[in-house]
């Protein structure tokens, strides 16, 4: 069985945030008003984090794209009182929107702060409404949502492969962020499959994971910058 994971090469990331935008339009992530965003209520399943290092003028900007880590030992899954967030057999941490009671315990438990809450019901402009992705359910108010590694694409890819009577190929299933990245900084595939790019990249000496010491076993690897 595949173990889906991601490797992000920080040397290649330019901080363009195309992954963020692609993710939002793929997953029907609603935009919030500027006032709400200032309150810290913007939703960004994939978010390019920016860290400013050093003092002016010797400053460096560091970019770290941060999707859900899809931990093998996910702290969010353990604490959910209603099993609305779960770890699938293929290693994807999902969220069952119609079951979530909105207690936000998982959001507190996640050390990577990747869980977002729907403070209000989502609103769409007419033009946005016309372009909602029919493969992804729109979330109601009061539930948690998060990056799913675009698992609706996996379903579709599997069906296509089955219809064509062939094995699933690496290129069949790519999340929106990996697909759109102009510098190919984001690789996605089966971590246990040496034929897949991530299968080899994740074993590179540069490969590291966020807060590995917590024992959460994230499946998103980062290739640290050489400089």
């Amino acid at each position, binding site marked *: 069985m595949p173990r889906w994971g991601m490797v992000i090469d920080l040397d290649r990331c330019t901080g363009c945030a195309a992954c963020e935008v692609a993710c939002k339009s793929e997953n029907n992530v609603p935009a919030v008003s500027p006032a*709400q965003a200032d*309150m*810290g*209520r913007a939703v960004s399943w994939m978010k390019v*984090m*920016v*860290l400013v290092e050093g003092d002016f003028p010797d400053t460096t900007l560091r970019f*770290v794209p*941060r999707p859900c880590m899809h931990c093998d030992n996910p*702290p969010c899954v*353990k*604490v*959910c*009182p*209603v*099993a*609305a967030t779960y770890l699938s057999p293929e290693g994807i941490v999902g969220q069952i929107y119609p*079951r*979530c*009671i*909105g*207690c*936000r*315990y998982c*959001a*507190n*438990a996640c*050390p*990577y*702060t990747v869980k*977002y*809450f*729907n*403070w*209000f*019901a989502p609103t769409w402009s007419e033009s946005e409404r016309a372009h909602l992705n029919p493969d992804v359910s729109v979330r109601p*108010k*009061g*539930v*948690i949502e998060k990056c799913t590694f675009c698992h609706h694409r996996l379903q579709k890819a599997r069906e296509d492969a089955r219809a064509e009577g062939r094995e699933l190929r690496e290129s069949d299933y790519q999340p929106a962020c990996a697909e759109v990245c102009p510098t190919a900084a984001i690789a996605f595939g089966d971590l246990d499959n040496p034929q897949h790019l991530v299968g080899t990249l994740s074993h590179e000496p540069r490969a590291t994971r*966020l*807060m590995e010491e*917590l024992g*959460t076993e994230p499946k998103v690897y980062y290739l640290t910058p050489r400089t």
Partner: protein
Amino acid sequence: MGDAASKLRDLPEDARVILRPLVETTWRFYAVAGLLGAVALWGLVAYYLQFHSGLGRTGLNQPEYWGIYIIDFVFFIGISHAGTLISAILRISKAEWRRAITRSAEFITVLVIGFGAIQPIIDLGRPDRLLNVFKHAQLRSPLLWDVISIGLYFTASTIYLYLPMLPDLAIIRDAGIKAPRFYRWLAAGYRDTPEQRNRLERAIGILAIVVIPLAVSVHTVIGWIFAMTLRPMWHSTIFGPYFVMGAIYSGIAALLIAMVVLRRAYRLEEYFRPVHFDYMGRLLLLFSLLWLYFTFAEYLTAFYGGEHAEMRTFWAKVSGPFAVPFWTMVLCCCVIPLGLMCRGATRTPRGTLYASIAVVIGMWLERFNIVVPTSVNPRWEFEQAARYFPSWVELSIMAGTFAGFILLYMVATKFFPIISIWEIREGREVAKHEVPERVASYLPPDPIGAA
């Protein structure tokens, strides 16, 4: 009412004094009740708005996911340790001075626990899906442990309030001073025969033992909700015992405030005597020292380890944006109660009242200092620290629940004797003779060879 008043006059003195609030109500009571009722209604309106449009009505955000409601949840459930736990411990340890105060304590427990238990429901994004907690119960979630332990504790403490009240309910029924059918139903055929009394006392004895581990489990589990996560300054083994200690501390303070008010309002000075305040004040002193010890241990452990993520939260509390609530908490939980309660001259009703008000405020701030500074300081340094200002909706709901609790407690004093009549009588008739015998049994016989 004239009829009830004349019936009241025929009762023995203890019953007459204690039952007076059940038949006589002053205009002041109505005024205060009306005011509290208005505040509670205001809170309901605020909740309706939040229910209607979503939790966006609060000041919460990402990553500041938990705020006023969770603070109040921990605070109210903490107060609920007033009753059952203190009363059970005093009963089991045969502290004779307990007789006048157990009932008022048990009432606090039962009434406040409901107001505590609704807080996480107010905090839910989807209160309409509450029953999923049973339908899809996931036992490895600490929230489920909480549902179970609060449920058990509420049940046990309600029975523990009701059973020792049976003889008093029978007294009201027999006196016929109020709502005869209601009290006939409540008294459940209790006639105070020696056999019934014997059974009742055995049942109370068993319950007093059962509620202690339940009370300890309730606040331990609430501490664990935080401690089981990997959040800086939450992920700590001290949280279980720390929460239990803090709960009893705030419970004692709440009880003392209730005693001072009841004493004044219902002229119960001869029942809540200075000695009660002196002894309860000593308990408060003990717990202020325990609080200092636990808090010091917690902060020293975080500081000495010096882990980056922990230190961000640590400094946010000690000298950062949360310095004011932090040091006010130290003042209210330690300096004021310690200073007032360490001297006999200030362990008076007035002195304990001031100390208790400080402790209640301080313990609320402690819950604030646990929930908010950790929430706004995520572990990952790339994530920016958040801000949190409670919205008027949150503050209104908070005011509404406080008012609702006090109102319900006031109403309860109009239907139930807030001091146990039969236990006072038992004290006068039985315990007064038992105690010298008990003391004699502690000592060697005089002369030693006599027995």
